[in-house]
């Protein structure tokens, strides 16, 4: 103990050796299990623990056997359901969230504060609470909303809106109002100024929001599961959840790998667009942005 303390004192800014070791072990521990799961999605055999050579049979193989993601109706349907929900959610939540962000940033009325509060609330609500809430309201009050795709879509949009607002708001504060006011000084109307000045300036945040909403929607498990109607509305995460303990073939790993690739692609697009097109300012250290994957 004293020996190590002594050595640290001799070189106070040197890197203590145990820190990189702990970090390296942590990184290995966090990545290796997933890497093994990905590896076995390419297994030539049926086992998920004995390697029998490389093959893509669990992705695209053999229509007759119907065991690959492409030809197993259950797996393919969950992939389609996930994509369908993510695209619909993206198309609806992003415009709603962008408009809400613009409105909340500039509205100075009596109800502005409570509205802002309402917007922040979904972000701190545990998912299980939101799942229960949506399930109960569709079960007891909005009985005209069928469980399954419609209910899942409504739920996904609800938890996505606030993320969009957070992303767009940072950008809005960075832009300020000067450019729009200049446009209006030069004779543009309110809406012309918005369309021709604000909207182009917001474009990076907008594109990032699209990709981000796609990613968090396709990643969602709890809301999708609470609002499920039957086999048709099973999404990939729900399929992983219900299939994992039933000694599944590697096609489940293949499905998970596809989800991972799609998510990483969406987040990479969001991150790259956000970095390339706009300098980020605004809320520094916002945990939400960090969680969303922008703290790079």
């Amino acid at each position: 103990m004293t020996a190590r303390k002594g050595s640290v004192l001799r070189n106070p800014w040197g890197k203590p050796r145990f820190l990189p070791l702990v970090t390296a072990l942590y990184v290995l521990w966090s990545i290796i299990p997933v890497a093994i799961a990905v590896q076995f999605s390419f297994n030539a055999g049926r086992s998920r623990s004995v390697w029998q050579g490389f093959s893509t049979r669990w992705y695209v193989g053999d229509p007759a056997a119907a065991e690959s993601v492409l030809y197993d109706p259950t797996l393919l349907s969950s992939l389609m359901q996930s994509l369908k929900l993510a695209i619909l959610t993206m198309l609806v939540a992003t415009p709603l969230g962008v408009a809400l962000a613009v409105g909340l940033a500039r509205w100075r009325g009596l109800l502005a504060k409570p509205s802002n509060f309402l917007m922040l609330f979904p972000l701190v609500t545990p998912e299980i609470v939101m799942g229960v809430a949506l399930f109960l309201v569709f079960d007891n009050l909005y009985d005209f909303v069928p469980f399954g795709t419609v209910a899942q879509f409504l739920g996904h949009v609800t938890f996505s809106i606030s993320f969009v607002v957070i992303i767009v708001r940072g950008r809005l504060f960075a832009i300020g109002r000067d450019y729009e006011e200049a446009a209006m000084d030069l004779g543009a109307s309110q809406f012309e100024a918005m369309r021709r000045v604000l909207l182009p300036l917001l474009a990076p945040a907008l594109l990032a929001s699209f990709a981000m909403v796609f990613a968090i929607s396709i990643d969602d498990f709890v809301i999708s599961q609470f609002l499920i109607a039957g086999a048709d509305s099973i999404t990939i995460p729900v399929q992983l959840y219900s299939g994992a303990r039933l000694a599944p073939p590697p096609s489940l790993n293949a499905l998970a790998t596809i989800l991972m690739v799609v998510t990483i692609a969406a987040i990479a697009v969001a991150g790259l667009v956000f970095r390339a097109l706009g300098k980020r300012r605004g809320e520094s250290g916002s945990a939400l942005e960090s969680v969303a994957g922008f703290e790079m």
Partner: protein
Amino acid sequence: MPTNLASGAEYDTVGSKRWVWPGFAVPGIVWLLLLFLVPFYAIFAVAMGQVDPILQRVNPEWNPIYWAPEVFADAFADLFGGQLGVIALRTIAYVFIASLLCVIVGYPVAYFVSRKAGRWRWLWLLLILAPFWINYLMRMMSWVNLLSPDGQVNRWLATIAGWFSVAFTPPDWLAGSHLVVILGLVYGYIPFFILPLFASLDRIDNATLEASRDLGASPLNTFWRVTWPLSRNGVLGGLVIIMLPMFGDYYTPNLLSGSPRTTMYGNTIDQFINQTTSQGALGAALTIILMIFVAGLMAYYLITINRATRAGRE
């Protein structure tokens, strides 16, 4: 100032009509009212409903004047002295131990990547961010795979036992082990702890630490009296971020054990809502109890942060 527009009551900020900005906010606000606030209220309406004397099911009561506490009485009876109490205590113990492990493992990692990683910092950062981009269920499924009776973990252990010619009976890791569930929680949530902590450690000015060293403090002393206090809010923030979902988690214990020995609070809610048709009211009551508990945690966090910022300003 646009000269063609009069300033005055009709306009709030420069040149914009009064209704414009609330107009933008309205669709989103209405959506959140109808699909967040009303559903939130629905939990209370269902939990406080009256038990139908004939059908023996609970009818939701939308008017607070007629709210009945019967279901809550049942839930509380079970919580204080029933099976639910055991489950709640187990959940608190799991979450507490898992959070502690997250701090013990996560702090050195966040500290290293934020302050000591040097030239390869971006790579380390990418690596600790990687779990964010991988679905939680996939990460759990990977462990189910590794820990299954004929999975890699048992194969590796058998190999190691073979080297020392020790007899090895493969244990069933997924049959209700507390340790496996707790480690699963740590595995699942630790990235969400590390990232806010990383951000807060990253903000500490090196000059502060140099000042401490110049004034004669040892590195350990500097860490204990400067770095740690400055990162305490990051630790607290990270803890809130991971504890909130952990208290409502049901999928982790279900996947990694599925045994009643490891049932968590979220599992009972999941059972009452998703797996039965008649116990919705009890599920709603348990959800409200969870919300109150979690809101207490949040309040503690906000008060602490608030006090720290105020103390920092003085």
